[in-house]
């Protein structure tokens, strides 16, 4: 298996034949061969050949929690940039406030950041997001860090291990959006440290034993602060 070494594949690379394998994400079949359609890491999962992208835009999935930035206030809602190929629509019915028709600018304006959940995506890839879910709010302070959307699972870690690690060692409020935006609210020096940690996770995302190395780094940092 490919657990030992992670293989980088590029578009048009033949990954295997379609008889003994199944074509997973990021692949297509031509002439009985499974071929990668993008630059990424080959992942074999019970007969399925997947390509996990190294780079690329966020591909929205219904139910994802994302961080959006308002692009424009319309009369019946807002256009929100969620780092996808096109902006998503946030209807006045889908916010926790009672918005009068045409009074959308009182609540959210272009440039405001908010947490949202992807509500639905139609066949034209037109998206709707909602703020009517637990703990979704407009963000008034804190910082947003942008990372590659494909690296988000690494930043969260297995069952949130990486995030709870950061929270354990650095006092901060942190929310990771699936679209590659991370909101951090803390004292300025703590935000700077979280940024450094996330940069490290991002640049070493495809190596092994990352959680342990990050924990060591965080421990060392704590010691330095105490001294």
């Amino acid at each position, binding site marked *: 298996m490919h657990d030992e070494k*992670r293989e*980088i594949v*590029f*578009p*048009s690379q033949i990954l295997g034949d379609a008889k003994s394998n199944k074509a997973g994400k*990021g692949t*297509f079949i*031509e002439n009985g061969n499974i*071929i990668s*359609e*993008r*630059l*990424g890491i080959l992942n074999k999962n019970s007969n399925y050949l997947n390509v996990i*992208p*190294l*780079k*690329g*835009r966020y591909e929205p999935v219904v139910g994802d929690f994302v961080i959006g930035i308002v692009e424009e206030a319309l009369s019946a809602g807002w256009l929100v940039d969620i780092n996808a*190929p*096109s*902006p998503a629509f946030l209807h006045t019915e889908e916010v926790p406030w009672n918005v009068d028709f045409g009074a959308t600018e009182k609540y959210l304006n272009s440039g405001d950041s908010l947490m949202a959940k992807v509500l639905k995506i139609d066949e*034209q*890839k*037109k998206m709707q997001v909602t703020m009517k879910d637990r703990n979704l709010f407009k963000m008034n302070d804190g910082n947003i860090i942008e990372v590659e959307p*494909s690296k988000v699972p690494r930043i969260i870690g297995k069952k949130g291990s990486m995030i709870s690690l950061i929270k354990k060692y650095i006092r901060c409020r942190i929310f990771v959006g699936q679209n590659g935006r991370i909101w951090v609210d803390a004292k300025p020096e703590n935000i700077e440290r979280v940024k450094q940690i996330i940069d490290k996770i991002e*640049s*070493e995302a*495809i*190596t092994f034993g990352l959680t342990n*190395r990050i924990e060591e780094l965080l421990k060392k940092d704590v010691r330095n602060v105490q001294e």
Partner: protein
Amino acid sequence: MKSDINLIDDNGKRLDGRGIDDLRNIKIEAGVLHRANGSCYLEWGGNKVLVAVYGPREAIPRHTQNSLRAIVNAKYNMAAFSVEDRKRPGPDRRSKEISKVISEALEKIILTEQFPRASIDVNIEVLDAEAGTRCAGLTAAGVALADAGIPMKDIPAACAAGKIAGKVVLDLGKEEDNYGDADLPVAISPRTDEILLLQMDGHLTLDEFNQAMDYAIKGCHIISEIQKKAILEKYQPKMEGQ
């Protein structure tokens, strides 16, 4: 046009010492720009080309959007200092044509149906020109698209063949292009050998044309290997890490 220059000497060598089916030196580097989603810098003989890819992002103006697939906007531009006499900046007839044929070639290999209503913008900037810039531009665009993580069927590779001093040769240089008899830029999808771009300037007989196509396709395959190496080089070291 006849000239006094001997494009092929008595030993069968060309002006720069190449044989009939030799390419110029090619150097490709992926991911050179930080602001672009994907980028590539390519040196091909005396050509220097920089390509930046943006997107998929919302297509603007809105009437250019296609509700079924993404549109591909390639923009070929020559820098004012890229040629001996200053090139008047801005789009002209020639660069508009090249932009169009490159856009159409890229549309064929990008899986555009995954991004309805979006546009993928490819900016090709020719910093230094020495014949064969459209092939250089398209080759670099292929690497930049892969670097941007855009799903596609293949990485396009382009290469020109032509006829100089009565002989069919691969990859024309500057003098060969200026004083030669014909120029045949070809772009293919190397995995399937599908033709993505084919233009011809000058005259070739059918036999010469077939010979030139053979040379060009062979050249494209060599270039394709260099492209793949460049992409892997950029991302492989990160894996080894520690």
